[in-house]
């Protein structure tokens, strides 16, 4: 086997040193009663060539692959990835390194993550960001736990029902163990979160909103922030589509205390939803309450600038059960990818691509409304929007699918009250020709 370098001779020589007669003797202290019985029932090894053929078949069986366009967002967005990004990030010095515990051998990873922290903070308008969380969903859960830690005596949090339903599910899983109260805030007719009930909630540690929210509607974060802070709660802003911040005001500039969300769209392939990248940022005053790893600047023996993992006393390695989180391995290479991607766009590029997303989505939205659909919500949107159709959309959707276009997620799956309405997404990867085909089919 090409991964196993030992020749028969090597093994014999080594056993002579270790004082064992054969390889099995190395395991002789393992009680018989717990020994594996028989073989493992795994298929015979596939050669590289057989494996490649197998994957060709698997890929072909994922019909998503052959779709011409997937006008679907709902937490996973199709964005262009420049060829430079994988070719740089897949360099083995980055890819095959462990967590940078030995900073002298890992300055590449460390500077790369430090840059990620910085660009993330800039994107979100926050002071500090961590080295990553698993994904947008667990980042939100950790943000709520962090807010509860900061607010100490309070034990209730409020989350918008317009937050991605899966993110909310993860919040419930994470918060279940503590005896916390979770209140869901309703969605108004404009598709924005209705905060009018906030003042009636006692003991409120934090309020979490997502913007653009699951319906694609841009929340009025500034107004929300004022209200939330008025109630002396912490304001958590979540997101699933960071491209929006190429156009929108950053959550930080709207007063958010913790901002967290999903960064997969910054250079990672969609890959059936993972790996993602949990982006996580907060104000400097909260940095010691943050979950996750942090890279910080320092100097070497000769005074030269360098980077190390820092503030690790918050972490489980040292704090064990008192850690701010249990997270250890995070999404290192994803963070590095996101930094490279943000840098590949630059201010100029992000602005333009975000604008293009807006324009393309607006084009489809307005055209479909022109063709008889009605907006489910009146609020402003970025690259996602919800529509209701006069007639059943199912057969149209099926016909489009036959032409290789996947259009819209049915909302009933997530919100019974909106059954029959659809959530569409249009990014810069959708050509006008495809959009026109959709419009034609609806007309």
């Amino acid at each position, binding site marked *: 086997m090409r991964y196993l370098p030992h020749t028969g001779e090597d093994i014999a020589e080594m056993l002579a040193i270790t004082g064992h007669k054969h390889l099995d003797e*190395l395991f002789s202290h393992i009680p018989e009663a717990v020994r594996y019985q028989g073989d493992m029932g795994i298929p015979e090894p596939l050669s590289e060539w057989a494996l490649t053929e197998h994957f060709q078949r698997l890929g072909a069986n994922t019909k998503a692959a052959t779709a011409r366009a997937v006008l679907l967002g709902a937490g996973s967005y199709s964005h262009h990835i420049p060829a430079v990004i994988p070719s740089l990030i897949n360099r083995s010095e980055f890819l095959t390194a462990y967590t940078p515990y030995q900073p002298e051998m890992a300055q590449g990873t460390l500077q790369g993550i430090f840059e990620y922290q910085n660009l993330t903070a800039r994107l979100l308008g926050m002071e500090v960001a961590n080295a990553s969380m698993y994904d947008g969903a667990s980042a939100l859960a950790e943000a709520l736990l962090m807010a509860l830690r900061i607010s100490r005596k309070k034990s209730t949090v409020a989350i918008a029902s317009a937050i991605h339903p899966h993110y909310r599910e993860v919040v419930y899983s994470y918060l279940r163990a503590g005896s916390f109260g979770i209140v869901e805030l309703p969605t108004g007719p404009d598709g924005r979160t209705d905060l009018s009930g906030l003042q009636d909630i006692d003991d409120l540690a934090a309020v979490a909103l997502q913007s653009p929210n699951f319906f694609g509607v841009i929340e009025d974060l500034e107004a929300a922030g004022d209200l939330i802070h008025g109630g002396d709660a912490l304001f958590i802003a979540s997101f699933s589509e960071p491209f929006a911040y190429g156009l929108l005001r950053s959550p930080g500039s709207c007063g958010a205390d913790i901002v967290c969300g999903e960064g997969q769209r910054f250079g990672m392939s969609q890959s059936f*939803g993972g790996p*993602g990248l949990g982006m996580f940022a907060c104000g400097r005053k909260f940095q010691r309450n943050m979950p996750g790893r942090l890279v910080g600047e320092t100097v070497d023996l000769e005074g030269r600038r360098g980077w190390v993992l820092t503030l690790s006393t918050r972490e489980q390695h040292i704090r064990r059960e008192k850690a701010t989180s249990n997270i250890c391995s995070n999404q290192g290479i994803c963070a590095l990818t996101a930094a490279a991607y943000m840098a*590949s766009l630059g201010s100029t590029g992000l602005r333009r691509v975000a604008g293009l997303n807006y324009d393309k989505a607006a084009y489809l939205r307005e055209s479909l409304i022109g063709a008889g659909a009605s907006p489910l919500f009146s609020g402003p949107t970025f690259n996602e929007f919800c529509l209701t159709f006069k007639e059943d959309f199912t057969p149209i959707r099926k016909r489009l699918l036959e032409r290789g276009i996947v259009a819209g997620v049915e909302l009933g799956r997530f919100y019974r009250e909106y059954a029959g309405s659809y959530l569409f997404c249009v990014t810069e990867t959708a050509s006008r020709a495809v959009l026109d085909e959709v419009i034609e089919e609806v007309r």
Partner: protein
Amino acid sequence: MTVHGPGTSGLILDEPLLWEKGKSGRTAFSMPDQDVPEVADRLDDKLLGAGPDFPDLSEMDLVRHYTRLSSWNFGIDTGMYPLGSCTMKYNPKINEKMVTTAGIATAHPLLADELSQGVLQVLHELQYFLGAVTGMDSVSLQPAAGAQGELAGMLIFAAYFREKGEKRTKILIPDTAHGTNPASAALSGFTPVALQSGPDGTLDVESVAVLMDAETVGIMLTNPNTLGLFEESILEITAIVHQKGGLVYGDGANMNAVMGMVDYKRCGVDVMHLNLHKTFSSPHGGGGPGAGPICVVSELEKFLPQPHIVKKDGYYQLEHDCPDSIGRLHAFYGNFAVLVRAYCYILSMGAENLKKATQLAVLNANYVRESLRQALHLAYETPCMHECVFSDKLQQKHGVSTLDMAKRLIDHGYHPPTIYFPLVVSGAIMIEPTETESKEDLDRFIAVFKGIIREAREDGERLRQAPTRTRLRRLDETLAARKPCLTG
């Protein structure tokens, strides 16, 4: 005669921070066509921002930036990386290619099952394989890393006792456990109770018997443990826990030591996680992403995170409606591309080579253990599995610490072992060579390490000054923590 490792020094290029480069107006991004009308007033001024202040770089700028940064790094592909507890084995290139297969890389996670059969097949088969390797009955691939696997396991413990209507709050965790274990237990609402390991580095049945009570949900143990030792009393321990109505959690991060050799279900383990970025060769990416699938006995299957991935009538499906499930831990189905790599690895190896990998990993560790035991203090005489733990006990008198020896290894071109962990061994040096290192490479590493130990006696200052061949010398970690500068 001094033996040199491969380490030497040569031309390396410096590189500033991204935002110290570039010029406004550049971009490395290829702009798609604006084939729809540009909307003039896109949004209300109240909502519209200026966009973040990112540096604007050309494609060449970007390429040089990351190319240079990479040259300051060290990966498995660069050289030996015997980081204990981390299983830094070779990461096959073919796996990196397979994840980019059209359909695998591009699958949207919310497409209907009938459009996702290929990716669902990968997940379903991987669940089966991991069950087969561990001996456990059912698997969920959702946890994004080992620690999230632990959390899933602890949540299952909680769900189990909730269903039984028992209110238990404590959990036994050995003092050698990885820090994530107590942290995950705490996150799930349990109070860890530290179990002291015995003088031979393994658990003592008696102390488990004493501490395991009706207020305790069970035990969370690592086997082989983080000292690289097999818990030989595993059956007695799990029997006690079960007898007292508890459950057994197994941290399977060290699975590389026992593939095809140990059956965890037969050990009495009820729930365990695996670290695919260790045992199953998925690259660690300088800190992730990993994947921490969780395996359970059939009794606990219903509690697994949802959606479940099942096969019915030859058709793969996502089952969303699992009323007993602990719920969802990931926005979708976990770190899919990491799972794909592990799947490729298992398919490439087959049962026989997986077992062979385990045998060779253990052989390599024993070989290093025997070869260095004269020169370094061996922490425990107990037979070791995939890693061995030494300490700096013999070097202290020369004023040389574990850290100094580790840093000196860098100069010789080796990544240091794990140091100062587990905490129960003072000045621990934990070496896990893995099976993909050849005898020649081990021999050279051993000779170099012996040379360093000789140096510790003769020229300790040389070690305390190390590393000297790296672009930067030792970094001031205290300063970094005292005056945190996290964004520059």
